[in-house]
């Protein structure tokens, strides 16, 4: 062993810088794994420590309708300290900002919520002023957006409040939630004065509980589960929240780790390729050692030690870089997390990253090293080397199998799902296979069809793609993979946004007004028409809940764990409409649509005493196809609704497909005309604004006249989605850059390891009379061709992957924008040429003899 270590150390003397450069290939892969792993450990720790502040209470009970007196009595019996919240979407008006309006989430609070965690407001202590009833706490970003300051007025419905503070953080909410819909906190008692809690508004009611240490809220929920279901109350405990967050974190960590792992595998391939070149240069040394009496194992072990040291060195440096990168992650993800993260180095994660680096790097290095075992001592006396490694070496196959197992094992471990893990390993193998096949195809085509008329430097540069020991496969793999990852990301974003943008095109609606009361509908339409924005689509909405499906009571279905119908579908409040015909966003997929029933349906007794059913005939309805599938319903099945206290029997007579992406009023359940007209209802109206200014003007006019009406602007939806995309893309791009940077390091490593061979060729060409300019041009041609091909092959894969995602995942039209591909070609080629030039500099500058003596 002593000889092996000594020889490994001595033998590396002239190559240490080169080997260190090669070991850098896995640095970024390991760094990514360590950074993600360690940061995730930070997050997990934070979730555990701050568990209660994730919910702000020990228990939260939710309902989509006002909590009934029966439910209130039950909740009061649970004991502990109780706080209430009523939240809904509404428009607010900022009088001091030119009466500009904005859709927000209003949260009316009463009691000591949040019981745990800290509310951050600026200035501090504003929450205590909410019960006064005349102040609000407003999302900090809104204040900035509209140039507001503390003390400015804010009109909510019919009441004007004073802004007490900006809201920075509320336990349990992430900044991402706030981006989707900014929050306005108000005292619950003041909500009545706003006039916004009218019938039909989509309101969420929440009760928060704080129990003494003797109460196990999880056990309490388990004990009362049946009762909660009967009362149609949804419960949320600290443990639920922790589990949900933990699972989400696991998914994100798994995904990001896999992106990092791709960089590691790519780096390992780079290491293997460099070691392959290195080993070829060491064949004579190995043969001499064999002549002098070294066994096959001893000579193999000398280079195995070097290979392992290479992997370990790279992994160690990677771990150090990973810890440094971890320092940079918190600001990157701050807006996506509902809490502040406590930073510490998770040594277990560092160890796992190191182990992954050493294992993957070691396994890939083994492949070329196996050839050392088979070097014949005869090579020392014969210059021609006959490589005896081939497909017949069983150890080679064993190493391939170990690599496959390691990749699949890592992926399964990270995703915690066999199918995902194996799918990732398979997709990685296919991507690598396609890129390698493309590279071989390019090399073959360059040999087969290179026109002889081309200038010598071009022919020589292109010929370098297929000569022995070429770098074509390695470089197309690394450049192509980096391009593939980044471009897929860009194209996916483009696909999703263009899909939403397409809904805006032509004369389609782009502004939606909702929560319009029955008596406001006609005047609102008139107001819009007067403003030059006539109604493009409108629909009455009647709220209802399910009573029974196919004769089985909902309560029974909710209690029965074997039915397999999602409880949200059974419990939710349905906002249905009635129409005489299908709209342009609907397609009939089964049955026959009935547009009108006569002499039947529901008539409402508006006299004192309430509603009543006059005719109990079964109403033909149309159901959305996915909901029907989820609820295991088909044509002819009976569904009984509770329409605000009135039972209504219906039968599914048709099933529709709905294009939910279009900004039109879309519904799960569609009734025929002649049934619900008499029921309490409200309206939604869709119109079109020519531009942002007109949209703002329309919203201001409507909210001024009808304070309870809310507006949803498609431009705002797009902007919000784009903002979220940007944040997510930022994180994913950050991770993908590890792969791209790894590709560049592999490129530098490949140039460095092939330097000796390149110098020999260059020297020969110089001896034969080539000028330095010609040598530089040859290098330029080769790197340009590699860069262009890398971008094209990676780009091709990205367009294919994006098309597959568009068709099967996003269900969107396939887009083929050329600009990203052109950008990729320019950037990748530029970077390849620059890196190739930088790492190969100096080769052509010295006289042949000097170079030969230096590099021999």
């Amino acid at each position, binding site marked *: 062993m*002593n*000889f092996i270590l000594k020889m490994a150390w001595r033998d590396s003397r002239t190559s240490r810088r080169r080997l260190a450069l090669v070991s850098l290939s896995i640095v970024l892969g390991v760094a990514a794994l360590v950074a993600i792993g360690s940061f995730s450990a930070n997050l997990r720790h934070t979730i555990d420590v701050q568990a209660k502040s994730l919910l702000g209470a020990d228990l939260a009970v939710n309902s989509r309708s006002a909590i009934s007196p029966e439910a209130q009595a039950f909740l009061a019996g649970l004991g502990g300290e109780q706080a209430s919240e009523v939240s809904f979407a509404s428009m607010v008006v900022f009088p001091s900002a030119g009466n500009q309006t904005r859709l927000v989430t209003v949260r009316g609070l009463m009691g000591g919520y949040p019981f745990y965690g800290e509310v951050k407001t600026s200035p501090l202590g504003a929450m205590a002023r909410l019960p006064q009833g005349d102040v609000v706490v407003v999302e900090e970003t809104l204040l900035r957006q509209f140039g507001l300051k503390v003390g400015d007025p804010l009109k909510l419905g019919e009441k004007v409040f004073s802004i007490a503070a900006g809201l920075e953080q509320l336990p349990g909410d992430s900044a991402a939630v706030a981006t989707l819909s900014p929050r306005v906190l108000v005292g619950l008692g003041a909500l009545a004065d706003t006039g916004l809690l009218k019938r039909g508004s989509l309101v969420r009611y929440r009760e928060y509980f704080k129990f003494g240490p003797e109460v196990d809220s999880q056990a309490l929920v388990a004990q009362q589960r049946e009762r909660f279901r009967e009362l149609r109350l949804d419960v949320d405990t600290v443990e639920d929240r922790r589990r949900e967050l933990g699972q989400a974190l696991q998914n994100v960590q798994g995904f990001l780790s896999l992106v990092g792992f791709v960089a590691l595998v790519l780096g390992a391939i780079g290491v293997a390729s460099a070691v392959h070149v290195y080993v070829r240069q060491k064949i004579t*040394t190995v043969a*001499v*050692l064999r002549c*002098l*009496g070294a066994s*096959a194992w001893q000579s193999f072990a000398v280079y195995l030690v070097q290979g392992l040291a290479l992997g370990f060195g790279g992994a160690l440096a990677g771990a150090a870089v990973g810890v440094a990168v971890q320092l940079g992650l918190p600001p990157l993800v701050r807006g996506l997390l509902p809490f502040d993260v406590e930073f510490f180095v998770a040594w277990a994660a560092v160890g796992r990253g190191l182990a992954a680096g050493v294992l993957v790097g070691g396994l890939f290095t083994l492949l070329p090293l196996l050839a050392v075992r088979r070097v014949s001592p005869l090579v020392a006396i014969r210059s021609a080397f006959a490589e005896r490694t081939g497909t017949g070496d069983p150890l080679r196959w064993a190493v391939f199998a170990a690599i496959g197992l390691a990749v699949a094992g890592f992926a399964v471990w990270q995703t915690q799902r066999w199918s995902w893990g194996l799918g990732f390993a398979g997709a990685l193998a296919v991507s690598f296979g396609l890129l390698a096949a493309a590279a071989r195809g390019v090399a073959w085509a360059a040999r087969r069809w290179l026109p002889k008329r081309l200038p010598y430097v071009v022919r020589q540069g292109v010929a370098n793609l297929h000569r022995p020991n070429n770098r074509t496969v390695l470089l197309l793999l690394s450049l192509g993979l980096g391009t593939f990852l980044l471009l897929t990301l860009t194209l996916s974003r483009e696909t999703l946004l263009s899909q939403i943008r397409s809904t805006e095109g032509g004369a389609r609606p782009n502004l939606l007004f909702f929560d319009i009361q029955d008596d406001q509908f006609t005047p609102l339409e008139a107001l819009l028409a007067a403003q030059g924005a006539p109604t493009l689509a409108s629909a009455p909405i009647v709220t209802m809940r399910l009573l029974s499906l196919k004769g089985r009571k909902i309560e029974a279905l909710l209690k029965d764990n074997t039915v397999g119908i999602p409880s949200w579908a059974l419990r939710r409040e349905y906002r249905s409409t009635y129409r005489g015909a299908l709209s342009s966003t609907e397609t009939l997929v089964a049955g026959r649509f009935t547009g009108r029933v006569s002499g039947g349906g529901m008539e409402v007794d508006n006299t004192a005493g309430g509603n009543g059913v006059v005719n109990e005939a079964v109403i033909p309805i149309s159901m959305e196809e996915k909901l029907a599938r989820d609820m295991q319903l088909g044509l002819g099945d009976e569904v009984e609704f509770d329409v605000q206290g009135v039972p209504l029997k219906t039968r599914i007579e048709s099933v529709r497909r709905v294009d939910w992406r279009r900004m039109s009023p879309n519904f799960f359940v569609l009734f025929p005309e002649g049934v619900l007209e008499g029921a309490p209802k409200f309206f939604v109206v869709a119109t079109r604004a020519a531009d942002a200014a007109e949209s703002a003007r329309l919203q201001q006019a409507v909210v001024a006249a009808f304070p309870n009406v809310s507006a949803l602007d498609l431009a705002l939806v797009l902007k919000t989605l784009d903002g979220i995309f940007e944040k997510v893309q930022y994180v994913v791009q950050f991770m993908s850059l590890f792969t791209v940077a790894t590709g560049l390091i592999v490129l530098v490593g490949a140039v460095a390891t092939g330097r000796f061979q390149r110098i020999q060729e260059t020297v020969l060409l110089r001896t034969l009379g080539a000028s330095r300019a010609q040598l530089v041009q040859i290098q330029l041609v080769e790197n340009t061709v590699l860069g262009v091909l890398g971008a094209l092959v990676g780009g091709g894969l990205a367009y294919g992957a994006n098309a597959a995602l568009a068709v099967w995942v996003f269900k969107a039209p396939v887009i083929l924008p050329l600009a990203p591909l052109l950008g990729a070609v320019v950037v990748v080629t530029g970077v390849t040429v620059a890196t190739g030039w930088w790492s190969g500099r100096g080769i052509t500058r010295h006289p042949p003899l000097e170079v030969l*003596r230096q590099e021999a």
Partner: protein
Amino acid sequence: MSEQPILKVERLSQTYPTAAGPITVLHEVSFSLSAGESLAILGPSGSGKTTLLGLSAGLDRPSGGEVYIAGEALGGLGEDERARVRNQQVGFVFQNFQLIPTLTALENVLVPLELRGESGREGEARALLDRVGLGAREGHYPIQLSGGEQQRVALARAFINTPKILFCDEPTGNLDGATSNAMVELIFGLNREAGTTLVLVTHDLELAKKCGRVLRLRDGKVVD
């Protein structure tokens, strides 16, 4: 009782498969050498000289026949066992020197001992380097030495394990006349001092004449 030969080669043949059919490069060659004897293998290019040397030294397995080094048949030995025999019984001098470029002159000389796990014998290695006139160059790398100097380091390396047989493959083939003569003097001088058996492949008739016996090869067969 006759003295046991140090090297015994019996009906040694080597055939390589090629696309055009098998080619026999060595055809039933036999000879034996006792301790201290010297043999020159002569012949034109492609006559099978280097193949015979390689097989005799146990660098490869023959297609037919047997090689005995110090009485031990190599045919039944595995690759690693043959390596052990080479380490214990054999020294090599190659035409193109074959020093390990990453090791200094002294380290190159010590490699055969270190392979055996022996340490602390730097003194012997230095003495050998002194003997070949390179005592002052022990810390130099091969690239810093001339061709003749590299070959002298190779000679010191060949004698460090006091081999029973020294195999030399065109030892002066890459050297100029004066350097070549000095090298020959060293080879034969060390050979005499250590009582080593010498097997030498060469084109050089003058060099061959210095050996006790000459074996002429043509097309893989012994012609003289």
